[in-house]
């Protein structure tokens, strides 16, 4: 790498991935030494947090921050090598994952599923983080596929981890549906390469914006985007791609489910936002799809209206299925699993609004709404799934039939869950309020009555299942299981820490909003993205030959 002013920033881009990779390898090698394994694991977590914080400050938020930085792997310029890109959007997602990741990691050291013997828990944990981080940072479509695979394999093991028949079955469903998605992903990526001649996302964006200059016929990309959208919807768990969620979320250890809901789900959302807006928004393809049954036509000068229509339908289905399903569950994690389906619908709604927004202002605003809602969901649902872990390790169960009176048994645990539940409902001044407020506001600004009605119905369902869960497990007569419970103070401290974060985000919302705004602007700034990645032509590549070797 030649010395440039952006040199440090550039190296920072790959830093979080290197940290988790080293942590994964280290914990794998130390498999027989539990203490060292835990120490390396925690050090890896800390290093990851530092790396992400450094990206936040030196690349995105600091006074001299460039806003975006790239790392060309192997010093091979884009689009010939693989490019990693850190911008506001990536940094926002990474920060979210880092906060929850640390909580889940520390939690895991207190409650290691399968006991303290030889275990692959921590390597898997770090590999999962590697996949998520790679997906947020890569600027290459095929490379995105690779990190999806890493995520999938690591989470597959976790779903099957506890080893019972029900876990194996959940894992089988999970891996089957996700492997289908992988095949579809490959088909889509192959199609895009065949159509546009590139896999680099920045290069793709500039080629799609001026297809004639590159001698391309970009018409097929809308269908290909449809294929990719289905893949990302599987990751995000949008209806009708949600089938794996209830069983997989219940089968995985709760602290991992916290990550599945808080982090890998957000990868799907991130990919939808990144591809739809940064890459495909400027594509010069007109769409026109009359839908005679509902008497509307999807029309526009870019693929966005198509994405938007699909997202509206999927989000509406998710909000209703998730909400209605959650009200009838009979265990804590059952409620939260269905709730995750519903909540991701609330995140997808503003994304859909952004695709159909009349002006750039509303588009930015809607994406901010989606990001803030996503942040709240990560914090709140992360907290709640970790709380399921605490309840299970304290009482041995998380079924309502066996629970009751937890509030008096452990007031701090109850308080944390109360805050988490209220954040889901959207009570001010918690982070969840701003999520809900911004999403409602985006719908109001878009002037969409039906969407507002949908959001109202979904929110009412949220109150219904949150209060039901509270009454069934935290109030009521104390059961034998709760009577005999021993609540781990460190686990509760982690939950309280997340609850404090939820409150802090709401009370001190201004900086969070500014970060989300930076992220949303980055998501919409195709030109800045392309300039930063700076795709070269073949002759430029030949001219720079020998520079790095």
């Amino acid at each position: 790498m030649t010395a440039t002013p952006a040199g440090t920033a550039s190296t920072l881009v790959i830093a979080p991935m290197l940290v988790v990779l080293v942590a994964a390898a280290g914990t794998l090698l130390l498999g027989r030494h539990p203490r060292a394994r835990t120490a390396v694991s925690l050090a890896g977590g800390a290093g990851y947090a530092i790396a992400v914080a450094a990206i936040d400050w030196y690349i995105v938020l600091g006074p001299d921050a460039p806003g975006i930085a790239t790392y060309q792997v192997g010093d091979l310029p884009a689009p010939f090598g693989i490019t990693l890109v850190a911008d506001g959007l990536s940094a926002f997602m990474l920060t979210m994952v880092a906060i929850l990741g640390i909580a889940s990691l520390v939690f895991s050291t207190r409650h290691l599923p399968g006991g303290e013997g030889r275990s692959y828990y921590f390597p898997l944990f770090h590999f999962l983080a590697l996949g998520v981080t790679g997906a947020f940072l890569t600027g290459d479509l095929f490379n995105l596929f690779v990190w999806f695979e890493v995520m999938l394999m690591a989470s597959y093991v976790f779903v099957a981890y506890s080893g019972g028949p029900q876990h194996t079955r959940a894992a089988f469903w999970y891996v089957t549906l996700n492997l289908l998605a992988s095949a579809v992903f490959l088909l889509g990526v192959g199609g895009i390469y065949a159509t546009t001649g590139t896999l680099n996302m920045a290069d793709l964006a500039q080629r799609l914006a001026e297809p004639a200059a590159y001698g391309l016929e970009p018409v097929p990309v809308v269908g290909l985007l449809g294929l990719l959208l289905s893949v990302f919807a599987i990751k995000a768990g949008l209806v009708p791609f949600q089938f794996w969620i209830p069983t997989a979320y219940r089968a995985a250890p709760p602290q991992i489910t916290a990550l599945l809901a808080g982090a890998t789900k957000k990868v799907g959302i991130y990919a939808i936002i990144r591809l739809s807006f940064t890459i495909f928004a400027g594509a010069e393809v007109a769409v026109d799809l009359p839908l005679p049954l509902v008497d509307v036509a999807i029309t526009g000068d870019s693929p966005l209206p198509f994405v938007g229509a699909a997202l509206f339908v999927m989000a509406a289905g998710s909000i209703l299925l998730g909400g209605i399903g959650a009200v009838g569950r009979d265990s804590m994690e059952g409620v939260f699993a269905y709730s995750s389906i519903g909540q991701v619908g609330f995140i997808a709604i503003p994304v859909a609004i952004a695709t159909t927004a009349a002006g750039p202002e509303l588009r930015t605003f809607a994406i901010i709404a989606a990001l803030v809602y996503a942040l709240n969901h990560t914090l709140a649902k992360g907290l709640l799934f970790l709380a399921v872990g605490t309840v299970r390790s304290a009482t041995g169960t998380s079924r309502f039939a066996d629970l009751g009176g937890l509030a008096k048994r452990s007031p701090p645990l109850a308080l944390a869950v109360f805050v988490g539940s209220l954040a889901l409902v959207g009570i001010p001044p918690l982070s969840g309020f701003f999520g809900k407020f911004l999403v409602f506001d985006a719908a109001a600004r878009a002037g969409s009555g039906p969407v507002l009605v949908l959001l109202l119905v979904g929110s009412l369902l949220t109150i219904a299942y949150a209060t039901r869960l509270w009454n069934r497990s935290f109030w009521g007569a104390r059961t034998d299981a709760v009577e005999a419970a021993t609540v781990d103070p460190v686990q509760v401290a982690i939950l309280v820490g997340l609850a404090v974060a939820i409150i802090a985000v709401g009370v001190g919302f201004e900086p969070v909003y500014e970060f989300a705004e930076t992220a949303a602007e980055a998501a919409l700034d195709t030109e800045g993205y392309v300039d930063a990645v700076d795709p070269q032509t073949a002759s430029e590549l030949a001219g720079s030959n020998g520079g790095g070797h």
Partner: protein
Amino acid sequence: MSPDLAMVIAAVALPFVVAALTPVVFRVLGEGTGFVGTVVALTSFGLLATQYGSAGTVGLEWVPSLDLALRFYVDGWALLFAMLACGIGALIFAYSPAYMHGESGLVRYYAALLAFMGSIVGVALAADLIAMFLFWELTSLASFVLIGYYTADDSSQYAARMAMLITVGGGLFLLVGLLLLSLVASDVLGPDAAFNLAAMLESPETMQTALRERGLFLPVLGLLAIGAGTKSAQVPLHFWLPNAMAAPTPVSAFLHSATMVKVGVYFIGRVRPMLVSTEWLFLFATLGLTTMTVCAIMAVASTDIKELLAYSTASHLGLMVAGFGFTSVYGAETGVFHLLNHALFKAALFLVAGIIAHEAGTREIDELSGLRHDLPVTAVITVIVALSMAGIPPFNGFYSKELLFEAAVEASQHHDIGLLGWLYPAVAVFGSIFTVLYSLRFLSLFFGERPEALGHVHRPPVTLLVPPAVLALLAAVVSVDPQLAVDAIVQSGLEATAVDPHEMHVGLPTSYSPALGMSAVTIGVGLVAYPSYGRLHDAIRSIPRTVPPIEANWWYDTAVDGLSGEGRVFAETVHDGTLRTYATWTLTATCTLALAGFVAAGAIAPTELGVEVSLAIALVLLVAVIGGVAVATAESHIAGVLTLSILGFMVAIFYILASAPDLALTQLVVETLVLVIFLLVIEEIPERYEVEIGTVARDAVLSVLVGATAFVTVLVTTGTRPDGSSEIARAYAEQAIPRGGGANIVNVTLVDFRGFDTLGELAVIALAAISILTLIVMRDRDGDRTATHDGDELTGDDSAGTSSDGGDDE
């Protein structure tokens, strides 16, 4: 004089700060914490009193990017409500230690009560829509915690959840209304005013005109009405309030009579100048009078003294809403003055009910009578406040009720509202008759014979008696000299809520007016009908038994229970536990998305094929297709797997013919391995599956759809690039040796140009190895598993179906 920011902030923040410190305070003072609450309430009251006479907006920044601020607005209306909350709060805190003596969970009780009081003060003073909403929701939250105080009690849980669902749910509607309001405000008053309620109220006509121009007037009116109506228990969403009597009585006195439920009324009064109109009149006068009448009738049907008071509260809230609904100045006078009067008499009555329950040990109306012998002071208090509730002159409730009658008459005289013109006054009188009836019934608890069954009734301690006595005294003062209260605070409250405020005068009527006639009819009929109270009571009670849907509770139970039950069935119908269903949905949706995308962009019909198909390739592919069909129709698994390998080997031959020998080699290896593994696994699989013909047909259609989608995708994407290879591919060919130092372009791409992908794939392989090890290791650790997961917890709930039927869709 403009308000002092520090004083206002301190008055709002103090209760919250002390609420946060309650655990510490309680550790030191124990049950005496209640008196700390009194001090806090009185301090806030004092801080607010220093602002008496000032008017204006002060505030702190909160989220400047969104123009959100903690703005506070001080005027007569805000001070009236805020000081009422603090004043009655002080009495409630003083009453609590004796009443709640020996209860557990008092930290939670006092913390929630303090936070609750702070929230009310916040709502009263907030001049920012979102700050107002913040405090609004906090009152619902505090209410949830306090109604559910007896956490192990089913009725407490039921009532708490109901209150939360209704009031927080209503809050959502309010939020949407506020957002629409803010959109309009930022349009016409500038972006700074987006959430600035004070700015909107400064230009009420502009706002109303702008709302109407955008067609948002009725939606906003409706949404705000739902928000305020749920909070202030208006029919048909009133039913949470009577259920909320599951809370400890001091809470009922404070939250569910004097303050929280008035938040909705307060807000209606606050936005009244901006939205007042004919639609406003129709909406709120109708809503309020309906609530007033229905709930008064329900109060007559009550069997429990707290239930009676709860319905009475809803009824009086209806009166205030109706008052504000009438657009004349009398309407505003009714709303403001009755807010004060009702707080005084109803808080006192609830505290009396608390004394009765505490000392007599029952709240059943039928079991109580003649209490004046045992509770003489309480009896005196009750006489004053119950007659005030009934609206009997010269008690204070009479004056505000008289104003309602005047407003109703004014509406029928000055508005062309047809049938409603006489209906409004008639309903107001009709509802008020029931008010007289149940007020007398409550009073009768103290008179008549003392029943035998009633055990020993203790004398209440002084701390239980002083708070209601203070309230009764205040009510008496207002009764004797109502103009004093008007001049002190009601007049300035009127100026904030009325469009054309004038000098307000109240007093005993000196000449005949229609309103006086209505009062006379009300009291007269009430007295005449009182002897038939028992029959009336039984008759009303029998109605819901014959027609359950007439009760709002019935609708709630049906909806909430139905939601749980149907939700369960729905989720288990969708997630039926068969992978076949899941894959069908997933694949259908994927294909739909892809094909719709191709159709939308007009990519479905490529002009020409990019490749020519030789006879050899055509033959190979034909055999492959026949192999594919044979797999699907094979008689046994072995035959299926063997035919599957025909298909695989044909693909390998295709690669050879297409000049890709390395791919062909890979394909042959994979194919051989797959064949071997399948043959090993088949032993473990049942020999046959019974599959219904419908399923077969569905699978066949799905297979064709998936195949068609993949085919179309490949066709349209490869048909568009006539030149075959991309710039990148050509560059790789040129650079393989100079940059990668290798003559095999595939190798160089894998390990050099795209080595990072390979790194990731190596991780995948490592993970695959780990997964096998983990599955084997964890299988042996059954003991650990049962320790942390009880055996059936994953099968009982979501995974309703039996094990998957093969996963053969892939």
